[in-house]
């Protein structure tokens, strides 16, 4: 009888202890969560604003045999920079909307020496083609189908719509190499994205897949040509990330992605790259993310590892975000 009494008393004590555990939720703490600990979509009423800069140069390509090679027959050299204003808002704990407004600045240089033996003369020509301006704006809605808990991962679906807000045709044409390049692609796209994520603190693992559909568009591909109707090849991509907290403020990300494009279609005469077929690439992108209170600073380097008929040079991405 004494043992039974002690058992009952001890079970009360245990139930009291477990009953006293409470989760302390302070909004300001939740806004300081890192890419690993934050939920898959923004919480209700949270607003995040960010600036994302991307820079890359065009020097080498993966050729049709998959070998990294230099573009022969031309010494064209290009750099591309874009600065994107990134706005995210949590409508509910499961629904997030996003707007991305890019500004682009591209440059292509080309130099040649012309020698005319008949006239006993030579001339060095240099061209610089630039493209500055607003790019194509993207709007997105994300819905968290499954919210993550200790047992199951989160599952998020996203739908991106990219609108042809950027200048689609070349302007201020002086000749075939001197003009203002377009800053937009002249087409509307729909990108359906599915992502699953699980946190194993201090790690998180993500698997994603997506399909990007391109609607038909119409634009001038090269100076001097007429507008041509076209449909860019759709894009399928699949990948995963493995992120780890190095300490409370720093997370190291690792992402591998496979991208496969279908061939473009042209419905008219153009000297565009109609021969570019069978494009695919596998990228590896390590990233470093600082979370200092509500500020988040991140740097990503995207390395194309293997590919076919795509650019083979790395791209640097720097971003700064703040959550309100």
């Amino acid at each position: 009888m004494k043992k039974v009494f002690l058992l009952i008393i001890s079970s009360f004590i245990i139930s009291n202890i477990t009953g006293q555990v409470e989760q302390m939720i302070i909004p300001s703490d939740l806004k300081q969560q890192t890419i690993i600990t934050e939920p898959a979509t923004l919480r209700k009423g949270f607003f995040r604003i960010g600036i994302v800069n991307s820079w890359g140069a065009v020097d080498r390509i993966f050729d049709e045999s998959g070998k990294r090679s230099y573009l022969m027959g031309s010494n064209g050299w290009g750099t591309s920079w874009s600065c994107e204003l990134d706005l995210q808002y949590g409508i509910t704990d499961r629904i997030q909307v996003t707007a991305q407004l890019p500004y682009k600045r591209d440059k292509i240089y080309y130099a040649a020496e012309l020698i005319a033996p008949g006239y006993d003369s030579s001339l060095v020509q240099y061209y610089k083609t630039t493209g500055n301006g607003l790019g194509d704006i993207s709007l997105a809605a994300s819905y968290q189908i499954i919210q993550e808990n200790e047992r199951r991962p989160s599952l998020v679906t996203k739908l991106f719509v990219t609108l042809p807000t950027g200048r689609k045709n070349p302007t201020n044409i002086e000749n075939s190499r001197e003009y203002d390049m377009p800053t937009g692609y002249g087409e509307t796209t729909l990108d359906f994205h599915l992502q699953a994520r699980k946190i194993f603190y201090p790690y998180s693992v993500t698997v994603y897949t997506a399909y990007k559909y391109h609607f038909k568009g119409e634009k001038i591909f090269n100076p001097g040509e007429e507008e041509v109707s076209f449909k860019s090849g759709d894009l399928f991509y699949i990948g995963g990330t493995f992120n780890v907290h190095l300490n409370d403020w720093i997370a190291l990300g690792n992402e591998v992605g496979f991208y496969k494009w279908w061939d473009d279609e042209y419905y008219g005469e153009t000297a565009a790259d109609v021969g570019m077929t069978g494009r695919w690439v596998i990228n590896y992108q390590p990233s470093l993310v600082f979370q200092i209170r509500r500020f988040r600073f991140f740097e990503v380097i995207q390395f194309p590892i293997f590919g076919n008929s795509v650019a083979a040079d790395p791209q640097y991405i720097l971003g700064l975000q703040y959550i309100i």
Partner: protein
Amino acid sequence: MFLSKTISIITFMKRRTFFRPFSLFLFLIHFYQSPAQDTDVYGLLTERYVDRPINVHRGQLQINTGYELSVLNKKFDSEGKAVNLAKDGSAAMQHLFPFDVRYGLLEHLQMSVGINYARTGIRERNVWIIAYDTEVSIDELNEYKGLDNLNLGFLFRDPFDFKNISWTIRGNILVPLFNHKPDQPDHSIYTAVLETSYTQLSYYYRNKYGSGILTGALGTDLKLKTSNFSALLSGSFSSDLMEGTNIQWRSNLVENEFEYYSEEFNYKYGHQVEYLALFAYQAIDWFAVQLFACGIYTYGGWSEATGKKVGNRPENLFSGGLGYEILASPHLRLFQTLEIPFLGKNIMGSFVINTGISLNFISETYYNLFK
């Protein structure tokens, strides 16, 4: 105390026993009574950037690697005028993967071994020859890729362990272990006859990255520090220890086919002086920002590639930049620097982004061996 130590060492040297291996060993462990012995291994691995000695600690293994992207878009001519290589038609990028391992044999003695792998392709300006009924386009690519010389080094830090100042001397030898001779070129020709005759000649030279010459280097570093600031002043002198031999590929175009032959020539890169001033501010215990200025001056090189011995023009480059280091964990440090060329003569200047990691481990057994 130090005076008596120094006198005993000089006496030791005078007895001509200094270079005997065992005597050298005794000499080195003589300086083992350092303050580091009072610190545990965790403390040493989490030392702030500004507090760290120039060398690694006794028993510390440090592995450094990363990725360095250089954008070769500027050239300084013989008068120091900057030429935009993108306009000139020869802009390029270099991808370099550095790797080096350092080990602290003693608290004041470090050995290191390092090597770089790099790849770059420099395309020259296109040449178009236009005649009445003939058009010829010529383009040229000079590719450089492969492993650099193996860099073996020793660094000795002063044994005085002053709180705010330390000084090192270092010696390196760069051994040309890997093939430095260029592979046979892979030129190509394309012809077409339309209204006029069109020919495209593509010259593709496949060079190696290594210098192919045994090189020796001597350097020194001085580090000054306060609670949150440090300044590092470094200088080094390197020189070829022997003449190098290389080959130069030539070609003849016979019936639309290239025939290749090579010619051997001797060369020397000459002497090189390098200097660096690096200022660091420890913003947070795990985060330090850096500001630096550095330079390189090369002279005395020559080559017989043209058939005659011709001296190379002296090269001079002064650059500066910013950087940071993050102490992510006791074993992992992350760093990044951005370097911009400011002034120079007869040299290419590149914008450099260097991103890397440093893995650090200390063998407690080795560290406590002489405790």
